[in-house]
């Protein structure tokens, strides 16, 4: 919001009106369309897997969806590269895509299955439930 200084007669520097409260609100309460974690509860019956996956009954893998704001560091812990990519997209070449909203951390899932030979297996799989989103 700083005025650019030039040959023009020096005007007293008056910073552009900066709505702190607006920015603060946006910082704390992202808009609905911003990148965040969302639920998607599915039952293995929908995938027609209920004849071999005995447990859990319902599975919520969650997913990340939304626009990545320009100043991504403060909320998403994104690397500086993300802001560089944003600047390239906006200032230099729109063919370079904006940063994407993707999962950054996961939880494991325990699965009880009936194997083809009728044996029963309890297994724990890594990275099956998204727990946090980021912009990359």
């Amino acid at each position, binding site marked *: 919001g700083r005025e650019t200084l030039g040959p023009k007669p020096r005007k007293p520097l008056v910073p552009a009106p900066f709505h702190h409260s607006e920015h603060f609100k946006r910082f704390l309460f992202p808009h609905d369309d911003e990148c965040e974690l969302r639920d998607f509860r599915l039952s293995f019956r929908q995938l027609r897997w209920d004849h071999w996956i005995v447990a*859990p009954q319902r599975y919520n893998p969650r997913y990340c969806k939304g626009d990545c704001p320009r100043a991504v560091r403060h909320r998403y812990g994104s690397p500086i590269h993300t802001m560089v990519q944003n600047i390239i997209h906006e200032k230099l070449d729109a063919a370079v895509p904006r940063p994407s909203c993707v999962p950054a951390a996961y939880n494991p899932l325990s699965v*009880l299955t009936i194997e*083809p030979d*009728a*044996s029963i297996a*309890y*297994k724990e*799989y890594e990275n099956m439930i998204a727990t946090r989103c980021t912009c990359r």
Partner: protein
Amino acid sequence: CRASSEESQLTASAKLEPGPEPWSLLQPVDGDPRSDLLPPLFKVLSGSRSGPPRLQPDSRALHYMKKLYKTYATKEGIPKSSRSHLCNTVRLFTPYPLKKYASGDQETGIFPPADLLFNLDRVAAVERLLKSVLLYTLNNSVSFPSAGKCVCSLVLTEPRASGKTPPRGPYSVTSSSQLELRKNSRWIEVDVTSLLQPLVAASQRSIHMSVNFTCPTDPPKHVAEAREGLFGSLLRVPPSLLLYLNDTSAQAHHGWYSFRYSKRSPRRPGQRQGVAACPARQGPAQGRRAPCPRPRPRLRR
């Protein structure tokens, strides 16, 4: 990353020509196509109809595994972090009884030798055996006044010898097992880990064993009555084989590993916040790294 590049090629190729089922081409990184969620996931993505109807397991075995699941995981399916043991895989096998499972001789308290054949084909090469038990199911819960003591002898006989290797004679391992029976217990576990450890490590897929129990023939009256109930309900069902395993592949969850390495090493006063000495969340199967080197104590200036 090999798997991910193959995945991208596969999804690309799946769009270009019908070709074989995409999921059948991708072998998981550890090369073991058996114990994995990937094949069925790709089957759904390729839209092919669900595979051949599966054999249905024994209902008692299924009941036991559902109880185990509730002990190990929450309703949403997340492993309970309160668990201390290392196993991230438990497999239950029901035997192919080689002959009709006879009922025992209740007077002398001697069980018949149960002749059992287990096919461990589903155990993957990346799964390490931690513990193994024979699981006897009681038809009704027997309340035993005190722990029974029986000697259980297990005789392993070589499965059908293939042409090359000369058949070894049967060899037996006698393990004396304390039959711990709690109130209203529905199951009896006989530990057979020492017997099966070498076989599972050698990737032996077919285990042929006969199990023989002998219990003291002059038990006190109350124990004899309770044992009567035990035999009556125990002898009719052949035991299942339970394997507690640690899957060392990358896609298996290693709760003990992340728990152990995620703890912050206590910072000493004056020590600067350095970069974590260990790779974060490097799964034990991806490149066997030496355990986290202990940082050398800093000299105080």
